[in-house]
């Protein structure tokens, strides 16, 4: 099954029109010793056989009926219309809107996405999206060095460990110095030669940091140093003070929570929003409003492309070209489907249901909730026997929380528990029962 429409007669006609006798003649530029006979791959499959085989492969993964796992990827409800919209051919089979006049649908959607994120974050400029939260943070760290012409960034502990690793990789590429410090040392470590300070809130452990305090600490030492906030689950913005209000310069987030399935970690999108003064230093595609050359109708085009690789080549600020368009579209549809009321209610439910579980689990002998700060939909609990809890969860079709040893080998029996609006009270209570049993 090769999806090639031609039959042999058509191929012969076309070869004759080209003026050759065989397809091989068209490959005359390839040296003979580089030609291969046949790939060592299986023969192609019919669609029913293919579906059967791949379905069987998918069934080797366990699908759980409820989950307490987050840590960067979240189970939120996705309205049915999201997948319907992104499955429309006009969106899914189009490409980068180079020909604006025939791409107004997607261009307007991106413009609306930029607007929706700017409204949600109260920041001036949002790009058309990055690959994911981690690479968005890495590009944000880079941006701080472009803007300040300084070469060192500080990362505050509590950023998702995989994001930290990604920032380190990107910074190593450009020889940017990276220092990772706990929040309580920021006051001592911050010096005027720092390009940017990056923090996550709610942090990896679910705790909400005081963004305004961080901004003030940094800006008091050097008002030009940029403060970057990242988030792994931006649904909290339904309730939390937006970064535009706390003085943050750059906001990045993993967008998966806004309408995309977990899908083993991808594809999703990186949200990237900045204050206006950084607009010309930001990576990624931007869509702007314009008008016809010879008319009065308004329309949308790719704009400020002089920052980008296809124009600037080695002088570009980033190599990113395509964004995560279809994921971005899903996010836009999600945000407008929820509306302000839905976004507030979702965030509130995440707070409330998490609080419920947090209170109840703290009452079980042997369990201790760690940390004093307010938390959103994740929190850390010291367990008497994590392995027992995890295995009994799995037996009951429940995806267990993350044991922190995954990223912090010394933190045994510490569970990062995630609760979303998708967890019913019955599920929370069942988990509590299992936790009680696992303590015995």
């Amino acid at each position, binding site marked *: 099954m090769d*999806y090639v429409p031609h039959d042999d007669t058509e191929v012969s006609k076309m070869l004759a029109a080209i003026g050759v006798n065989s397809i091989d003649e068209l490959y005359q530029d390839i040296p003979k010793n580089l030609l291969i006979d046949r790939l060592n791959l299986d023969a192609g499959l019919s669609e029913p056989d293919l579906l059967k085989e791949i379905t069987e492969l998918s069934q080797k993964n366990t699908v759980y009926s409820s989950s307490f796992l987050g840590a960067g990827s979240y189970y939120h409800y996705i*309205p049915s219309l999201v997948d319907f919209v992104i499955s429309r051919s*006009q969106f*899914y089979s189009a490409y980068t809107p180079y020909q604006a006049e025939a*791409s107004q649908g997607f261009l307007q959607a991106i413009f609306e996405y930029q607007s929706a994120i700017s409204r949600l974050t109260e920041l001036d400029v949002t790009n058309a999206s990055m690959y994911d939260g981690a690479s968005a943070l890495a590009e944000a760290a880079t941006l701080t060095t472009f803007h300040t012409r300084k070469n060192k960034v500080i990362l505050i502990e509590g950023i998702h460990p995989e994001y930290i690793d990604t920032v380190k990789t990107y910074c190593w590429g450009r020889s940017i110095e990276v220092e990772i410090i706990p929040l309580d040392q920021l006051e001592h470590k911050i010096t005027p030669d720092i390009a940017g300070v990056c923090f996550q809130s709610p942090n990896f452990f679910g705790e909400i940091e005081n963004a305004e305090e961080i901004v003030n600490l940094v800006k008091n030492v050097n008002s030009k140093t940029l403060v970057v906030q990242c988030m792994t689950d931006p649904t909290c913005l339904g309730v939390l003070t937006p970064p535009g209000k706390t003085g943050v310069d750059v906001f990045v987030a993993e967008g998966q929570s806004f309408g995309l399935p977990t899908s083993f970690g991808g594809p999703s999108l990186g949200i990237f929003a900045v204050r206006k003064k950084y607009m010309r230093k930001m990576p990624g595609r931007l869509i702007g409003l314009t008008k016809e050359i010879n008319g009065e*109708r308004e329309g949308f085009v790719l704009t400020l492309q002089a920052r980008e690789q296809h124009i600037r080549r080695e002088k570009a600020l980033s190599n990113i*070209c395509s*964004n995560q368009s279809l994921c971005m579209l899903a996010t836009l549809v999600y945000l407008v489907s929820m509306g302000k009321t839905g976004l507030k*209610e979702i965030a509130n439910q995440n707070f409330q249901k998490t609080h419920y579980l947090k209170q109840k689990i703290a009452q079980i002998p042997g369990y201790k909730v760690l940390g004093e700060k*307010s938390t959103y939909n994740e929190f850390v609990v010291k367990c008497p026997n994590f392995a027992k809890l995890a295995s009994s969860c799995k037996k009951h079709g429940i995806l267990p929380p993350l044991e922190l040893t995954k990223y912090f080998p010394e933190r045994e029996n510490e569970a990062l528990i995630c609760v979303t609006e998708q967890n019913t009270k019955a599920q929370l209570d069942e988990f509590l029962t299992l936790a009680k049993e696992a303590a015995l």
Partner: protein
Amino acid sequence: MTRITPELIFEKGYDGMKNNFVPKMDVEEVDLNAILPPEFQREDIDLPNIPEFTIVRHFVNLSEKNHSLDRSIYPLGSCTMKYNPRINEVTARLPGFAQIHPLQEENDGAMELIYNLGEQLREICGMDAFTMNPAAGAHGELTGILIFKKYFESKGLKKDKIIVPDSAHGTNPASSVMAGYSIIELKSNEFGEIPLDQLEFAMQGGDVAGLMLTNPNTVGIFDRNITKITEIVHKYGGLCYYDGANLNPIMGVSRPGEMGFDIIHLNLHKTFATPHGGGGPGAGPVGVKEELIPYLPCPQIVKGTQGLACIEQSDTSLGRVRSFWGNFGVLVKAYTYIKALGAEGIKRAANMSVVNANYLRSQLQDIYDIPYNANGRFNMHEFVMDCHLPNGVNAEDVAKSLLDRDLYAPTIYFPLVLHEPMMVEPTETESQRDLDKLITALREIYELAKINPEQLKFAPHKTPVGRLDNTYAARKPVLKK
């Protein structure tokens, strides 16, 4: 005349309504102020509540203002806009793929899929190992060039330059700079090929890490000297990077690994038929030869004695390039595609992409200026025309006039080795009948240029908006409302 403004989604809301996408709150609610200090809470959100049906209509109407491959040919050069089989959408949405968490332990099917896709790509490309982490072609390039960097660092060699031909995609130099390299640009010949003497001269400097090359190149020509090129680079201790943007015409025919390339990135959304989605999500797997395996990013899935295993970290690896595993959903689609085609199908797809491109060229070269047609060479998957039409009609005018004929336009103004380039890549999934529509349109436009150039210069006329003012957009940017 008054300005006609598009109606945005934000104008379609009602304050007093809400949709039903929030589950029941079934735990006892506490005062939010008790669990979250009021100073951490926002006031309002400036997003409307919009009825579900209004949203559906809005996006259906938007979609109708968008040309797409499923409507008619989308011949963007170097973008490989081939049909996206619908089965791929079904498999990527199977619960066992779409609903699984990246950190769950019961993931044998996902690990197997990632590993097996790597095995398929190894066979197709002649490489020794692949990483599936990179999210896009450009991300793959960055990963590949960071592998260069790690390799030379571990050897204690200082190499800080990379050679890129002038016809290369803009991402090549941009990616190299992100890894700390500066660029030596080589001027390619009329066929977009690398001049061997200049290559050797550049390599002799001793500070060159290697060469980035697309083969077939961006004018659609397979570089006959490919083996000599990679030999020269290797002779001076450099590495050869294969930009897989143009792999489509040679998959199953010839292998980059055997041409002497050390690193390759692929664009699964081009060659392996995953949808372009208006510009992503894609996936940009990177393949390497044996010697470079230690430097691949983490996590890596490897085959051990006990089955598949995951390397989360290693001292030699360049580190992480993103979170989790990669654009897994896209990998599922590409895997499904390769399984559907099999060995024969892959070769036939490659073959027919070449037949289609050369057929198109053959039907246009008597009137359009296709620079290399006199030399008896054939193109691979694409070709470039220099669009100097009568009466000053240029490539942009031709492109916009195609839109009026319900066809999408080829890539224009790239590669800038010509003045008015138009880069045409039909792909194998267009039938002769569909190609003939494009040929008829391009010939008609040429004739029209002689008698009514004004109509072309003011095109498009039938699209939802007329030709838009790019300069106006950039002068005082409006990026949100």
